[in-house]
């Protein structure tokens, strides 16, 4: 039986047709994966289903009735709950108050009934096997736990349709297992789930049905078992992706060396990065990989120890020093750490000129270089006056990379450079990193996606508890070996 039917839905924004005559159906009790690159129209479709956007044409039938949503509240009332990629939790309030935000149970005097609030939250958390105290402050939870609370919040409304938008972007493998168990339990209760993710492995693990969108156009809907990883990628991207063969460019010369480098977060770091080397950093969320990057970049400056670049000691007490010395950092969180929301692509690229080598020289030459990079990295926009905030995640990341490359880095520290970007852009980033290594630059690649580290790196450092737990050469490394070191189990 069909729970949700979407007929001929269209929606445009200035300059783009976000959805073009899209039709699809979701059966009750199924997990329906929605796949496509960033900008394919998935988010627009989700925003329409959650009542945030109105379609121009088309019709939505939900549970046998035509659906007309005037706002998010309407969607909740009809039985559609959505878990957005960006969390909607209030850090200063308790878990229970977040779960029942704006619909806290009340006593007959109209005051909040905290006893019932905590009781009902406990029951729900227990049912979902989420081990969190309902009275705990959300701000004190880990990113993964927050994500689980967000899902609990959506489920507290007892929806018939649950929409999950990139629910595993910031959670650990263990939490993914819990999440999948919850999803399976829900489907046996007859709840339908629309699942959006860039992680293809997860899609094949959990989905019954897969719908593919590309550039706002429906490519089709298939049972998951009829597709393979490769055929799905081809449908999403519309072209065959080719990754250059791995070839090591690791030179003999040591480019960057840390000797007992430490600050308040990292005790005594020792590492060597060779010219032309791609050095991977694996580890669990919170193991200290980002802290190491910030230490090397001077964002959290070192208090003790030595940092040598080209065998010469360098003082890196502020990112400015790092950049002047040719050490660049691509931050983990695009939105909060890289993006200037008001600024255009050109102005963003200009921030490379704010300090460091590119500061001098002709503006015209710089402009030409910037334009060349935009083209070379295949940023999907003809117009550099466009605001970066209006680009898709993958294109944003390319702009931020271009900005760093304009500063002529010797060492590039890339922190989760492919986090949440589509597979086409991912391949572009991979090819770029390899090319940089081939030019003799050193690259430190922090990533939580093990396959990515395994195809790109000459050497992988596994970080556990703020320390290097192990160093694996390319031929020694495997997912199992990395995880073993990362978790510290023997």
């Amino acid at each position, binding site marked *: 039986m069909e729970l949700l039917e979407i007929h001929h839905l269209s929606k445009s924004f*200035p300059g783009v047709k976000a959805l073009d005559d899209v039709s699809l159906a979701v059966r009750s009790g199924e997990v329906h994966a929605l796949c496509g690159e960033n900008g394919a129209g998935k988010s627009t479709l989700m925003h329409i289903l959650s009542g945030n956007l109105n379609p121009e044409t088309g019709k939505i039938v939900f549970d046998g009735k035509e659906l007309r949503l005037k706002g998010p509240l309407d969607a909740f009332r009809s039985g559609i709950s959505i878990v957005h990629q960006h969390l909607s939790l209030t850090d200063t309030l308790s878990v229970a108050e977040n779960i029942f935000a704006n619909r806290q149970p009340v006593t007959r005097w109209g005051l909040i009934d905290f006893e019932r609030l905590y009781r009902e939250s406990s029951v729900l958390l227990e049912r979902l096997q989420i081990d969190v105290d309902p009275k705990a402050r959300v701000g004190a939870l880990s990113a993964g736990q927050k994500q689980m609370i967000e899902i609990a919040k959506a489920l507290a409304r007892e929806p018939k349709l649950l929409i999950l938008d990139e629910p595993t972007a910031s959670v650990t493998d263990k939490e993914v297992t819990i999440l999948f168990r919850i999803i399976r339990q829900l489907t046996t209760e007859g709840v339908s789930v629309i699942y959006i993710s860039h992680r293809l492995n997860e899609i094949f693990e959990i989905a019954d049905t897969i719908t593919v969108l590309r550039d706002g156009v429906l490519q089709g809907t298939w049972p998951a078992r009829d597709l393979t990883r490769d055929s799905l990628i081809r449908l999403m991207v519309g072209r065959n992706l080719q990754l250059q063969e791995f070839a090591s460019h690791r030179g003999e010369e040591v480019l960057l060396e840390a000797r007992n480098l430490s600050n308040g977060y990292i005790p005594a770091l020792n590492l060597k990065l060779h010219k032309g080397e791609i050095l991977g950093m694996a580890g669990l969320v919170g193991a200290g990989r980002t802290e190491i990057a910030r230490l090397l*970049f001077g*964002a959290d400056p070192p208090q003790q120890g030595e940092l040598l670049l080209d065998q010469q000691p360098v003082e890196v007490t*502020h*990112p*400015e020093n*790092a*950049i*002047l010395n040719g050490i660049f*950092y691509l*931050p983990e969180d695009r939105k*909060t*750490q*890289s*993006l*200037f*929301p*008001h*600024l255009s692509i050109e*102005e963003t690229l*200009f*921030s*490379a*000129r*704010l*300090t*460091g080598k590119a*500061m001098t020289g002709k503006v015209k030459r710089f402009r030409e270089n910037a334009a060349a990079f935009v083209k070379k990295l295949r940023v999907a926009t003809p117009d550099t006056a466009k605001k970066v905030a209006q680009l898709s995640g993958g294109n944003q990341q390319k702009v931020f990379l271009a*900005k760093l490359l304009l500063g002529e880095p010797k060492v590039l520290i890339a922190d989760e450079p492919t986090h949440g970007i589509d597979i086409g852009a991912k391949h572009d980033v991979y090819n770029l990193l390899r090319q940089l290594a081939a030019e003799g630059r050193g690259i430190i690649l922090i990533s939580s996606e093990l396959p990515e580290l395994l195809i790109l790196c000459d050497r992988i450092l596994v970080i556990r508890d703020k320390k290097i737990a192990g160093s694996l050469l390319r031929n020694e490394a495997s997912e199992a070996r990395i995880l073993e070191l990362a978790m510290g189990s023997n």
Partner: protein
Amino acid sequence: MRKILEDRIYSLSVLLIVIVVVAGLVYPDTFLTADNFRQLLLNLSIDAIVAVGMMILLIAGVFDLSVGSILAFAGCFTAHLMFFYEVPVFWAVGAGLAASGLLGCLNGYLIAYKGINAMIQTLAMMGIARGLALMVSGAAIQNLPYWFGAIGQSKLLGVQMPVWYMLLIVGVFTFLMSKTVFFRRYYYIGSNEVAAALSGIRVKRMKMIAFIISALLAGIAGVLLTSRLGAALPTMGRGLELRVITAVILGGASLSGGVGRIPGALLGALFMGIAANIMVIARVSGYWQDIIVGIILILTLWTDQSLKKNYE
């Protein structure tokens, strides 16, 4: 059309021209005279000078409530030195400006390096600087040296000097904020402080410098006002901070930072000055003047918001 509405420099200029033309037709004898315009420009020159500093702060994502008090303190301190200690005009003015810069430095240091909220810090400084102004001037200081009066009372090409200073300051900072790397950094800081720091900008230092510039401009305005009045009053610049923030917001700045241009500060001050001038000529009561300025501010922000919504 959309472009014109979105670019505040354009839209405000067009609005100003319309207002001037309409007012000129209605009050040809009183409004549209050279004398009136000279007076009008003189009156708004003090606000406009302070507005330039405020614009820089708002672009960087902060603001300063203490500018009115710093203006009063700079004027009173300069007068105090000249009157009681017979310090030469040049050195007294220098000391007055240095003192205002010092207060700005204190604001900037505590906000940028110690993390005190900009509103609270500058609110506190608003009281402190006003108190200092009262302390050094008492009720008022009169009988200032002749050469001090010349700073703000002399004329060039028939226009009073404060107007020229204003144009010079607006011109210099327009150039700096649009053409130099150093000052362009404020746009990045206001747009995203974290990303700016990771781009190698020393955000804290830059912020402190912005507060010093703002306080220095307030100090210059204070010296000019004292010179023009021929007396230092501790009540000078009362309510200035809100008037200036209004002008700057009208001129295209946003409290969330990252946007705005220096000419906008001048246009905003010009708009407020012309509106006040017309209301005086039209004999609108003083109460209504404040109400109308408030309504104009709300309408501007409302238009902004609805434009933004259409876009998203």
